[in-house]
């Protein structure tokens, strides 16, 4: 057997190891990639509680159009300032108007000391209330329907 033949016999094992380690690395990278993707998707939708409010058509003129539906993941502050999770840029909405959050299987709503106040099903709220699906939330003249 020649020298190169001998070396290539040894290297045949090395090649096998290299190829398999390569495949392992690639599988690991793909695994990380898939994990990254699922974290982006699942956290917001599956792991955390999710609800939404949708505006009801009203006659009042709005300075900016509303979206058809606002999603709430776990907790959301509604208000005029850009820091809020749901920004509604109207004069009669306070900077930080109200907060909706999820706790122990229930959705709560509390007014954050707004000037014009918040009404749930027609009643002005003074302290935190539990929200049910199809409850009507009104801020000034704007009306939203709460959905889970």
């Amino acid at each position, binding site marked *: 057997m*020649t*020298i*190169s*033949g001998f*070396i*290539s*016999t*040894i*290297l*045949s*094992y*090395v*090649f*096998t190891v*290299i*190829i*398999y*380690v*390569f*495949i392992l*690395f*690639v*599988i*690991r*990278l*793909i695994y*990380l*990639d898939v*994990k*990254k993707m699922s*974290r*982006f998707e699942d956290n917001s939708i599956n792991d955390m509680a999710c609800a939404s409010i949708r505006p009801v058509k009203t006659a009042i003129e709005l300075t900016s159009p509303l979206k058809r539906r606002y999603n709430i993941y776990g907790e959301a502050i509604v208000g005029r300032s850009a820091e809020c999770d749901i920004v509604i840029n109207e004069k009669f909405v306070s900077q930080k108007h109200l907060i909706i959050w999820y706790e122990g299987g229930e959705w709560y709503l509390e007014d954050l000391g707004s000037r014009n106040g918040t009404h749930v099903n027609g009643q002005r709220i003074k302290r935190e209330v539990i929200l049910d699906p199809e409850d009507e939330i009104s801020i000034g003249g704007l009306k939203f329907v709460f959905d889970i």
Partner: protein
Amino acid sequence: MSDSDIEFGGENMGMNNIKVNYRKPAYLLILLNVLGFGLLFMSKDYNVNILYNGLAVLILFLIMYTTLVVCHMGDKFILLMTFMLMSIGVLILCRINIKYGFRQIIWIIVGGISFFIAYFIYYKVKIWEKLWFVYFITGVALFMITLLFGKTVNGSKNWVGFGTFAFQPSEIIKIMYIMCLSCYYCGTWSKPVLGKVSPKWVTLGITYVFVGFLVLQRDWGTILVMMSIYLFMVYVYEPDKKLLFTNVAALGIIGCLGYKFLYHIQVRISTWLDPWSDIANKGYQITQSLFAIASGGYFGRGLGNGSPYYIPEVHSDFIFAAICEEMGVFGGVAIILLFFLIAYRCFKISVMTDNLYDKAVSFGVTVMFALQTFIIIGGVTKMIPLTGITLPFVSYGGTSIVISFTSLGIIQAISAKTENKSEVTEHEGK
């Protein structure tokens, strides 16, 4: 990039805080190439051309991979795995005959250029789904050219040559066919043709027209691939399964008739069932392939120690047998695993994209790759009857390499579209 594979951000665990290290597998690929080409350099009487070949593969890999990672051009793993397959292919080709290896590298460079061209064209042009007629006409025109000017090689008339340059139009037709089918299955082409005929029957007609041309050329491998692409498309997209079963039944009948009347097919089946009775003649190729695979053992006899010259067509169709002989069963299984992973990534791209046309095209291309691999590896290992077809990215063959790269460029463009779109929506969200 840091040494650790994964980094978590401290406070806000956003999506962008995982950093994936793309370098490690690339180092391994380079190591394999350096060792392999060094060994060949030693065993082939210190022929410097081998080192140039290896260098060309490495430089091309580095250029393409860096461009992909730096410019955020979609999925990075497909190209990585493709280059692994290609390096093994070039190594074996250089070992069989340095002339083949050298030509293969030229084709790979052409393929790399066509990869980027296909990427940019597919990425920029937006009207692909409206051009079904163009694809059909191109396909028929290519078939006509093959029938008129074709050369017969190994019993099938599927080569068209201009001087020293020759190519296989059927490889291009496969891509045209997939794009044509996708036009219907993505839903944009719903208007009936010529007043009454629904596009469903038009696609069926196109399939059988193409298959008819291929029968005239006696290119059985391509028929198998094309028919299977159609069946897979119907299986995935058609809610009513009657069409699928009717087609399968029709194919069965056509197959039986072909077996009864065509000598060519009879030989294929009989050598598959029993190659040993006519070992010196008809069964020679497949038995030599089986001997080669068996003599390799688990880890192979080592690069340069085997005797692949006994197998006819070892550089193109039977390259898998040579790989098994010199790199062992584990090497062969690694090739199959790499193809599995490529198919998985492509299917994932197909699932992730929103554009229905892109979905259909990437699905079709993936099915094409997977089926070609299955048909030729199955044929070489005598699992299914042998049909001559190239192993994508590994076999020697200009058209095969260039078209495989082009279809890879299309898939890459689709994945880049999806990736860029999700980045845009993320920024809007913030």
